[in-house]
């Protein structure tokens, strides 16, 4: 194996170029954010844009501060985060279980397929009134909304991962006399881990859509509630603040999944 000591000059130049490119990308990303925020702040400061309509970074920070002081900040974040995380886990777990059932029987798969196709294309928000009447107006309803927004995709992606398992490996398991359960646990589940990671990434985004959509329809607290309420009373600082917090939270949750993926898929 080589080490840095005996790399050729050409290779060192190549490494240097790669490193420089990485730094440029990193800096550019932050620069764009700083530019947007700075411009936004300046334009509102000099009244080119009306901060009542567009809010501004400093007003967002002030709003966060006042929400924090009144003790509302973490209450709203906690509620929405709780709903999103609960909905996410239920959708993934239930979706995975249903995918296992569909995987195990080709006949069941064929029977259920049209239902999945229709449910997949149905805009879930259409179920809003039904959910309120059937489940009520507390956060269970919002979690339910989150689950139905995500579950179909979880089923379809997971199942696709199961069915993409190398047929040679399936033959091998069969030849060794493995039953359905052994095939599932020893081959299908581990082989489809990368597919599961992809599903999780998409499911996280859908969970946020579900919880905020749920809060739009029915809620008394949460970030989605703040956005709707802020819009109704023309408190756009509140709308911007809640949106900003959502961006940060969604980014963090995606980051956690991406980190887990890196760790899990390393072995593949």
């Amino acid at each position, binding site marked *: 194996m080589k080490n840095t000591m005996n790399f050729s000059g050409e290779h060192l130049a190549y490494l240097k170029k790669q490193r420089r490119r990485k730094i440029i990308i990193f800096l550019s990303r932050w620069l764009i954010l700083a530019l947007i925020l700075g411009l936004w702040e300046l334009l509102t400061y000099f009244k080119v844009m009306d901060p009542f309509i567009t809010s501004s970074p400093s007003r967002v920070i002030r709003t966060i501060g006042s929400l924090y002081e009144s003790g509302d900040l973490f209450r709203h974040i906690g509620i929405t985060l709780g709903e999103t995380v609960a909905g996410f886990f239920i959708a993934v777990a239930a979706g995975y279980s249903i995918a296992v059932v569909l995987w195990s029987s080709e006949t069941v798969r064929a029977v259920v397929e049209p239902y999945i196709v229709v449910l997949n294309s149905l805009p879930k928000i259409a179920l809003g009134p039904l959910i309120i009447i059937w489940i009520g107006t507390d956060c269970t309803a919002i979690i339910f909304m989150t689950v139905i927004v995500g579950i179909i995709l979880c089923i379809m992606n997971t199942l696709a991962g199961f069915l993409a398992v190398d047929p*040679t490996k399936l033959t091998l398991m069969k030849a060794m006399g*493995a039953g359905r359960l052994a095939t599932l646990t020893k081959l299908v589940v581990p*082989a489809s881990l990368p597919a599961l990671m992809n599903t999780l990434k998409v499911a996280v985004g859908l969970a946020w859509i579900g919880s905020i959509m749920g809060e739009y329809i029915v809620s008394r607290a949460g970030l989605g509630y703040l956005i709707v309420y802020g819009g109704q009373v023309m408190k756009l600082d509140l709308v911007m603040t809640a949106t900003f917090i959502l961006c940060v939270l969604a980014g963090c949750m995606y980051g956690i999944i991406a980190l887990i993926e890196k760790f899990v898929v390393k072995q593949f």
Partner: protein
Amino acid sequence: MLEFKSISYSYHTKSGETAAVSDLNFTVGKGQFVSVIGPSGCGKSTILSLAAGLLKPSSGEIIKGSGEFGYMLQRDALFEWRTVEQNIFLPLEIKKRNTAEMRARAVGLAEKYGLKDFLKKSPSQLSGGMRQRAALIRTLAAEPEILLLDEPFSALDYQTRLEVCDDVQSIIKSEKKTALLVTHDISEAIALSDKVVVLSARPAHVVAEHMIAFGDSPKSRRNDSRFAETFEVLRKELGI
């Protein structure tokens, strides 16, 4: 050890029925290495599936001795998420014989056949030849009596193929296993086997059987003048 008695087998698909094998007769004696060659698509793999009991014959009888089958496939099908060692333990786990004793035996086999330094590695760190060797050790780990080899070398490049071919043959011989190989490669069949069974095109039946007696290793056979003669005979019988 293994006897096919007037075996027929048909595939059923929507578009109809395809006779893959018809009135097939041959035997594999204990400790014998038998190769089945035939034109491609003649139902060679079907024969192995029938032998292993994965498929039931439409008619006829397969007489089996005691002991289990071990399967080796066209590709090694090693699980990337397991180390080489864990791959070798796979059949033990599935057959619920995952005892310390069986594991030690499997590791012993792996060490005996040059996989000692690779046991804790991932399959992706192994060369194609080494991977196929690991696949063979995996097959042997469950102590099968008969090995069913489904063109196990066809996915390898030519040089590796000769190497692995000799390798696998010597391991099978020194472990005193019975083997049934299906292949479309005439020279592979001659180099490896005690007996070559030539099949017709679909529906497959036996055209000829040849005992190969010269040479004592695949290498010495390839260097023997009778290799080319046998090759010609088989080639004509296959009609190519």
